[in-house]
C-alpha cells in the first residue's frame, strides 16, 4: 500500500510537470512564434493604439454606428473580463421585457423603418461578447446608418458586404457581419 501511495504521488507530479507545465509552455512557444497576432487576442490597431479585438464585440448605441448583439455581461455590456449570457428561460417575463425595450430603442433610432427585426438583433448572445450580427440584422440598419452619415445606402451595403465573414469552407457555421471592423471602416472612410 505504501509503495502504491508513493507511486501515485510521484506519478501525479511527473504527469503534472508534463501536461501542466511542459505542454502548455510548448503550445505557448509555438503559438507565439507562428501566430503571434492570434495568440495575443487578435488586437485591432488604429494609429498605433489598440482599439479592440477583431473577435470581441464592443457596445455601440449611437445611431450612426451599426449596433451589435445585446449583451448580458455585468456590470456593463460587453465586459470582456467577465463573459456571461443572460440565462433567461424562454418563458421568463424579464426576457420578453428586455426584447420589448430593445425593439423600442431600435424603432426610436430609426422611426420610419417598419421591417420586422431579425431575432439576433434583440436577443442577448451566449458570451455577451459576440462580435457578429447576421447579414439580415445589418441590412435592417443600413438605411439608418447611411442617412445619418450622408452616404448612399449602396455604398454602406458594399462595406457591410466587405466585412461579412463567410461560412467556413463555404458550409460551416453561419455568415456574420463583424460590427467593430465595419464601424471602424465607416469612421475611417
Amino acid at each position, binding site marked *: 500500500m505504501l509503495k502504491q501511495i508513493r507511486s501515485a504521488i510521484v506519478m501525479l507530479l*511527473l504527469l503534472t510537470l508534463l501536461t501542466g507545465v511542459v505542454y502548455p509552455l510548448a503550445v505557448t512557444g509555438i503559438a507565439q512564434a507562428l501566430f503571434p497576432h492570434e495568440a495575443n487576442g487578435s488586437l485591432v490597431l488604429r494609429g498605433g493604439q489598440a482599439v479592440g479585438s477583431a473577435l470581441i464585440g464592443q457596445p455601440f448605441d449611437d445611431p450612426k454606428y451599426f449596433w451589435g448583439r445585446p449583451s448580458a455581461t455585468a456590470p456593463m455590456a460587453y465586459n470582456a473580463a467577465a463573459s456571461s449570457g443572460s440565462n433567461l428561460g424562454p418563458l421568463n417575463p424579464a426576457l420578453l421585457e428586455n426584447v420589448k425595450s430593445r425593439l423600442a430603442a431600435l424603432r426610436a433610432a430609426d422611426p420610419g423603418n417598419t421591417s420586422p427585426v431579425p431575432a439576433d438583433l434583440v436577443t442577448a448572445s451566449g458570451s455577451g461578447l459576440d462580435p457578429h450580427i447576421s447579414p439580415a440584422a445589418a441590412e435592417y440598419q443600413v438605411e439608418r446608418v447611411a442617412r445619418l452619415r450622408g452616404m448612399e445606402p449602396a455604398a454602406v451595403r458594399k462595406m457591410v458586404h466587405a466585412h461579412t465573414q463567410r461560412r467556413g469552407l463555404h458550409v460551416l457555421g453561419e455568415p456574420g457581419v463583424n460590427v467593430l471592423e465595419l464601424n471602424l471602416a465607416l469612421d475611417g472612410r
Partner: protein
Amino acid sequence: MTTNGFIQLCLYMGVLLLCVKPLGAYMARVYEGRGVGIDRLLGPVERAIYRLCGVKPEQEMGWKAYAVAMLLFNFAGLALVYGLQRLQASLPMNPARMASITPDSSFNTAVSFATNTNWQGYGGETTMSYLTQMVGLTTQNFVSAAAGMAVMAALIRGFARRNAAAIGNFWADLTRTTLYILLPMSLIFAVVLVSQGVVQTLGPYATVTLVQPTTYDTPKLDKDGNAVKDDKGNAVTEKTALTQQTIAVGPTASQIAIKQLGTNGGGFFNTNSAHPLENPTPLSNFLEVLAILLIPAALCYTFGKMVGDTRQGWAVLAVMTLIFVGFLGVCVWAEQSGNPGIAALGVDQTAADARPQAVQSGGNMEGKEVRFGVVNSALWATATTAASNGSVNAMHDSFTPLGGMVPMLLMQLGEVIFGGVGSGLYGMLLFAIVTVFIAGLMVGRTPEYLGKKIEAYEMKMASLGILIPCAVVLVGTAVAVVMPEGVSSVYNPGPHGFSEILYAYSSAGNNNGSAFAGLSANTPFYNLTLGVAMLMGRYWVKIAALAIAGSLAAKKIIPTGAGTLPTHTPLFIATLTGVVLIVAALTFIPALALGPIVEHLMMTR
C-alpha cells in the same frame, strides 16, 4: 432547417464515422502494448516515468489492486487541485491578482476536475490564476480522461482474457494513454485552434480604447457604501463613463484542446466555447465539436479489435449513433422553431438562406452566437451531453423547453451515448450485460456476452453501475427542492426553475459538467452536494466496471452454440437501444414532466 444546416449535420456525422477505424485501431495498439510509431520518440520518457515511480509495467494487477491504484492517484490529484486554489493568492503566475478560493468552492472544483466532470461553479477569467488553470486544471483534464480510458481498457481485457487473474497495470495504462493518445492529439489541436484565434499567452489581460465611448448605470452609493434609495424604495442609479475595455486572455488553447478531446468540458472562460477567444470561427467550432465525440466513438472500434470481433464494436457504435441522431433531430427542430413569445412582439425568427442580404439563422437566438447559429448550437448541445463533455457553445438555460430537455435526458441516460472517454463505453457495456440478461430470460437460456457467461455477480454489479447515478440525480434534486438553500439559488421562475435544479444533479451525478447556468451554484450547499454527487457518480460506476472486469477475466470462454444470442445483429442493436431508452424513461419521465414538459405545454398554450 435550411439545406445548409442539413448538409452541416451530415458532414459532421460523416467525418466522425470516418475517423473511428483509424483512431480506434491506433488506440488498440496502445493498450495491447505494441509499437505505435511515436513510442520511438517518447519511449524514453515512458520508461523514465516508470523508473521514477517505482513501477514495473509488465507486472499486472487484479481488479482490486487496479481500483486501489486508480483511487489513490485520483485522490492525490484532488488534493493538489484543492491546495492550489486555497493558496492561489500567494503563488506565482497570477497577473490578474486573483484571490484564494473558498474551501467549499475549492472542494467542488477539485472533485469536478478529478472526476472528469468539469462542472464549474466559478467563472474562469474572474477566479483562477494562470498557475491554477495550467498546473491544476489542465493536468486533471489529461489524467482524469486517461484514468477513464484505463478502466475501459481493463474491462475490455476482462472480456478478452480467459482464466486470468489480472486485468492490466493501471500505471502503464495511465501513462501510455497520456503519452501516446492525449498529449500528441492535444498538441496538434491546440496549435490549430490558435491559428483560428484562440488565445495562448502568459501575458496580462489586454486593455483597449473603445471606438464609441459610452456610459453605463451603476447603483449610487452613499459615503458609507450603502445603496441610495428613492422615495419609493427603488435603488437610485448614476451614469458612469466607459472608455476602455479589458479583454481577458491567458494560456487558453492548450486547455481547450484537451478539454474537448478528453470529454472534460471545463472552459477557460466563464461562457466556455461560446466565448469568441475560446471558439472564434465556424471552423474552430466544427473541430471542437468533432473532438467531443472523436475518442468515445473510436473506442468502440478499439473494443471490437481487442475482443477479436470488430462487429461487436460496430454494433455498440450503431446503438449510440441511432440514439444520438434521434435526439439531435428533436433539439434542432425545437430550437429552430423559436420562441412564440418573442415572435408575438414582431421579431423575425425565420431562417433565411437565399438572398445574401437577408441571411439569418433565425430561431431561438437568446444565448446563442451568430457565427454558430441555431444548427451548430443544437448540434453542440446534443454532442456535449451525449458524451460526458459538458462544454457549451450556447447557454442551455435559454433553450426552448424541449430543446433543453434533450441535453438533460441524454445525461440521464447515464452518459452512455458515446459518453465520456472510456466511461461512456464501460457504461454502455453494463447496459449490454443487462440486455443479454433480459434476452436470456425471454428464451430461458443462461445469458452470455462475448463468450463469457453472465451470472448473478455481473448482473448485480451492472445494475448497481446503472442505478446509482439515477438515484444520485433524483435524491439530490428532491433534497434541493425542499431545502431553502436549494431553492434560493434558482434564477428563472416557474417550471424552468425546477429544470435548473434537475439539470444540475443530472449533470453532476453523470459527470457531464454542463449547466442551466442561471442557477447560482457557487454556494456552500450546492458546492458540497454536487461535489458528493460527482464522486458517487464517478467512482461507484468505475468500481462496478472493474469488479466485472476481474470476474470476467477469471472465466473460461464458452463456444457459441445454437442457444447463443448473437450480439452484433440488428436484433441485438434494437434490443440494446430499447433497454437504454426504457430504463431512462421509467426513471426520469415523472421528473421531466414537472420541468420541461409542463413548460413546453405552457409555451404552446
